[in-house]
């Protein structure tokens, strides 16, 4: 059986960063990465840019095969880890192989949740997680006119912009909630997003969801199970009874973690794999980083799952040090920002720190829909200090840096808090 000093499950942001840092600290150690996708590392952040034709396909890739060989990292791609035995420190793989590890890093990331309604296997019903999904989107949009996006997550915005920029004339986003991005934003911030989408040819329909899909040509599903497998989606039938003609459908209903293969091993799992502030699990020599880690966040003094690029990268760095015996507390406030559609009609958004209303003591709004920019600042008293713990910012990038500084400094803001709702109050002055 093959044996390695460091075994990393997952070759995206957290896993690849960890491998590189381990190599720097342990020049002689053996390192293997098991990567489910049959590719070298690429940037999921660039997928929206790829489908908008801002960059070519090859530019999405961050690493070439040569990089792994230069770093003497054994990169096993197109293979899934499917069994873990903690007593013998062994991982079994989908290709029949087994690897014994000295230290194990779980950096598996998430996978898309699939819709399970009638007709959901029709062609041109798309997901967006992998580079192949991006290829499919570009192909599916050719010659199409009408697109429908299902779901109110982050990826719905990528579908909406991607569809429009691939020539789809009418794009409708269908959300079952009260408003767009209701899990991330308040109603006003969402309205602002919706206004920007509207200016760019994207309509939002709320309080409704898909009941089933029908194939082009009008045959009803699922009553015709014999339908040819090549048939494309032609209609979305909603629970409210609307029948919407469509050429392409984008589904963004969430990400799930596949942790079944470790669930009975004794590794503690809650929403994700539980770790302490060193990203160590409860089992010796097993660590978790990135989207699959529910880590003890010393900054906000709670367990925390953060599914974003900057978090995955900085956890990859911290966990690698810990795996090499350099004790390092993971302490980073990660944020995520992006833009959608081009200026002047386009918009920008940022999420920094913890933007969870149930966690904060108070949420302060700055700006307005009319002003075209809005921020929500999340405030909480921690150990007697009134601190900013997070913010959501729509269309006001100049607020990101001062708010990030205020979160990082753990500054007591109680004497300034009354001024926060005044958009003219300069946060930079107190950061």
């Amino acid at each position: 059986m093959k044996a390695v000093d460091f075994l990393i499950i997952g070759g995206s942001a957290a896993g690849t960063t960890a491998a590189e840092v381990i190599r720097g600290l342990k020049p002689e150690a053996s390192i293997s990465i098991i990567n489910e996708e049959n590719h070298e590392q690429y940037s999921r952040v660039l997928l929206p840019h790829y489908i908008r034709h801002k960059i070519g396909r090859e530019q999405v890739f961050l690493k070439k095969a040569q990089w792994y060989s230069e770093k003497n990292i054994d990169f096993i791609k197109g293979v899934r880890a499917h069994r873990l035995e903690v007593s013998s420190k062994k991982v079994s793989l989908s290709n029949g192989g087994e690897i014994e590890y000295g230290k194990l890093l779980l950096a598996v990331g998430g996978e898309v949740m699939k819709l399970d309604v009638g007709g959901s296997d029709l062609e041109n019903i798309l997901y967006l997680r992998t580079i192949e999904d991006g290829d499919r989107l570009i192909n599916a949009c050719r010659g199409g006119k009408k697109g429908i996006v299902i779901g109110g997550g982050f990826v719905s915005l990528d579908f909406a912009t991607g569809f429009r920029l691939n020539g789809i004339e009418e794009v409708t986003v269908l959300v079952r909630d009260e408003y767009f991005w209701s899990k991330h934003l308040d109603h006003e911030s969402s309205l602002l997003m919706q206004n920007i989408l509207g200016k760019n040819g994207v309509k939002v329909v709320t309080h409704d969801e898909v009941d089933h899909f029908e194939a082009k040509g009008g045959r009803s599903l699922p009553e015709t199970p014999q339908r040819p497998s090549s048939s494309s989606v032609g209609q979305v039938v909603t629970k409210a009874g609307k029948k919407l003609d469509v050429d392409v459908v984008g589904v963004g209903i969430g990400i799930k973690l596949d942790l079944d293969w470790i669930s009975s091993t004794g590794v503690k799992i809650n929403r994700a794999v539980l770790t302490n502030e060193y990203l160590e699990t409860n089992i010796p020599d097993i660590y978790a980083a990135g989207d699959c880690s529910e880590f003890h966040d010393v900054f906000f003094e709670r367990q925390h799952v953060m599914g974003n690029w900057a978090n995955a990268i900085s956890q990859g760095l911290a966990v690698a040090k810990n795996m090499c015996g350099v004790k390092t507390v993971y302490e980073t406030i990660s944020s995520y920002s992006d833009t959608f559609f081009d200026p002047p009609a386009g918009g920008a958004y940022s999420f920094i720190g913890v933007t969870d209303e149930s966690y904060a003591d108070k949420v302060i709004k700055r700006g307005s829909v009319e002003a075209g920019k809005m921020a929500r600042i999340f405030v909480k008293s921690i150990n007697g200090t009134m601190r900013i713990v997070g913010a959501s910012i729509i269309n006001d990038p100049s607020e990101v840096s001062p708010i990030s500084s205020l979160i990082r400094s753990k500054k007591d803001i109680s004497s300034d808090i009354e001024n926060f709702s005044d958009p003219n109050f300069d946060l930079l002055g107190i950061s």
Partner: protein
Amino acid sequence: MSNTKKWKIVIDRDLCIGAASCVALAMKTFELDSENKAILLEGEGDPPNMIKLAAESCPTKAIILVDAETGEQEYP
């Protein structure tokens, strides 16, 4: 553009989306400006290996590293 011990660092503002992984890894070298784009800080900066890691961490490959002595582009 600015000089450090080893690299000349260039940030492509058109590519930068403010994902801030560079700031998370090399806080003495990078920060975000009022347009939420990465800029370079004056001063000592971070060690070259951390700057390299920060450049490699950029999800849009917006950080370009040029060898200060030879002038050759080293990343991406």
